């Protein structure tokens, strides 16, 4: 009762079930998947669930109906997408999960799907927390800009961070509010929170976009981001890394959306019968004032 088999072929017809495409990170991920498929000469069936886990399951079903060779799935939600994974398996199609996992009690790597490739969101939050513990001076008063309420990266990046700083009494979280992973919303929320908590000296944003919005808000309020207020974020896109280099962001943990090469390589390995680990964690970098300039060239 193992995984569906996949023969070795020159080209494959594969499906990529994207969650949504309403932010730069997702768009970069999609682009990477498309470009790499093109480079390999593979046929890619691309679907977009528009932020709905239910639709994503239906999307996967439509790929099954099209008899693709394999499915790459970026699950919108841990639990609902387990159903999609099982459907694919029942149809004899191997699945590789990208950037988010499915609920391990419902579907397991090695039996239900091949593997999970991605980052560990909790760990990302922890890295930010750990860096803060090491780098803040005096009392740290933190505003946390949360990702979209209810989404798993938001929940995990919050949990990782809060767990990491819990023990440190010199770090106090003043407020945690939903910035919807968006620049404009991040800016507006930050503006408002700045009024209520003028003594803030640390901002932790769950992604680059909100961090950039927060920087605009800080500057509009006459504060110097990076100096008066430490700014930290996750994603590590080029714009953010540049800001680290400019000293406006202090620390970024990378969460690289360029999945294409790794994803297809893994599939080829699987077809070739190689042993695939249950989890492939991306070797995500991080950037601070010292490493940013060097990293800029390779930041996505």
């Amino acid at each position, binding site marked *: 009762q193992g995984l569906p088999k996949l023969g070795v072929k020159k080209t494959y*017809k594969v*499906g990529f079930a*994207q969650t949504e*495409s309403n932010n730069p990170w997702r768009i970069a991920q*999609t682009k990477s998947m*498309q470009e790499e498929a093109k480079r390999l000469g593979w*046929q*890619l*069936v*691309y*679907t*977009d669930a*528009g*932020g*709905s*886990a*239910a*639709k994503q*399951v*239906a*999307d996967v*079903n*439509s*790929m*099954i*109906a*099209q*008899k*693709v060779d394999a499915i790459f799935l970026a699950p919108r*939600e*841990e*639990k*609902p*997408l*387990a*159903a999609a994974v099982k459907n694919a398996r029942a*149809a004899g199609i191997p699945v590789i999960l990208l950037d988010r996992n499915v*609920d391990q*009690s*419902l579907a397991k790597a090695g039996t239900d799907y091949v593997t999970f490739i991605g980052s560990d969101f909790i760990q990302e939050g922890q890295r930010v927390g750990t860096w803060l513990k090491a780098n803040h001076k005096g009392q740290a008063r933190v505003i946390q800009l949360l990702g*979209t*309420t*209810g*989404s*798993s990266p938001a*929940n995990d990046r919050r949990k990782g961070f809060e767990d990491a700083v819990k023990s440190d009494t010199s770090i106090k979280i003043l407020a945690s509010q939903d910035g919807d992973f968006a620049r404009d919303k991040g800016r507006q929320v930050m503006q408002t929170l700045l009024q209520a908590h003028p003594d803030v000296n640390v901002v932790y944003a769950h992604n680059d976009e909100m961090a950039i919005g927060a920087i605009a808000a800080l500057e509009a309020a006459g504060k110097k981001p990076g100096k008066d207020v430490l700014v930290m974020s996750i994603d590590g896109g080029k714009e953010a890394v540049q800001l680290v280099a400019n000293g406006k962001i202090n620390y970024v943990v990378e969460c690289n959306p360029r999945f294409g090469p790794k994803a297809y390589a893994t599939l080829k390995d699987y077809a070739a019968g190689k042993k695939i680990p249950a989890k492939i964690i991306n070797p995500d970098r991080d950037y601070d004032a010292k490493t940013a300039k060097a990293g800029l060239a390779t930041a996505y």
Partner: protein
Amino acid sequence: MATSPLPSSARGQAASAFLQRYGVLIALALLLTFGALRYEGFLSPFNLFSVLAFNSMFGLVALGMAFVIMTGGIDLSVGSVAAFASVIAAMLSPHGLWLALLGAVGAATLLGLVNGLVIAYGRVLPFIATLAMLLGARGLALLFAGDQSVSVSYESGFTNFGQGKIGAVPYTAIVLAAAFVLGSVALRYTAFGRHILAVGGGEDAARLMGLKVERVKVLVYTLSGALAGLAGVILASQFGAGQPTEGLGWELTAIAAVVVGGTLLTGGMGSIGNTLVGVLLLGLIFNILNFENGKGTISLSNYWQSIIRGVFLLIVVVLQSQLTKRRS
């Protein structure tokens, strides 16, 4: 006293009346034919029933919406209410399907009732009352769920409802069909149905004629809440989780389906059967786009897909309105 027969009984009208009535059905048939000819695997039972199972949620929501719209109202809260119900269903799922079903549909019905009371007796316009519920129910869903998806129990048989089948036919498709048959009968053959249409056709007149307009309104919003609740139970059961963030934009899909089905947004006229056809028509478009992307000839990015969907909607409603215009 003049006793002229029908004022409108010209011959040429028959054709456009036919088209108006069956136009959507013809469009659906055309779309299916197109898909069948162009894509391999499109007409497979797996694909069709998968589309049906997924769209059963929209179908139920659109059914409630159709009733609401026929009274001249609107219910923007259906998506949030369904999400809320899915959370409640998931929380109750360890106690078995029936309790989860009753509890979730009951809770959603309650929210629908609140909508109805606020609209009928509070005299707040439906758009605003249900807009508030759209926010409120979402908030409640997140509160109950603790901001994340809620697991359902797989042991209690709860998931059979959403995932089980008779032969190749999913239960959810059967539930959908049953709901529409009942709805159709209720609209056509019961006084309640007539009263819904009368309220939509002229609220003041209906009131002066002695109809209990308020009660009719409360009932349709409650019904819409209940059906959204049922959709929420299917959501939880089919996908194995109560999802507080699901259901975004369902109200627009449902409204579009109702309108595509030929129901007037101003109320007073409409068809239940065509609403279902409208749901399937809009649902199939997504499916077709997925298949088109699989052809490999072009890869439609997400934004091209939304442009295509918009243009498709445009074509359907323009044709519809031209037919209606020609008729009257």
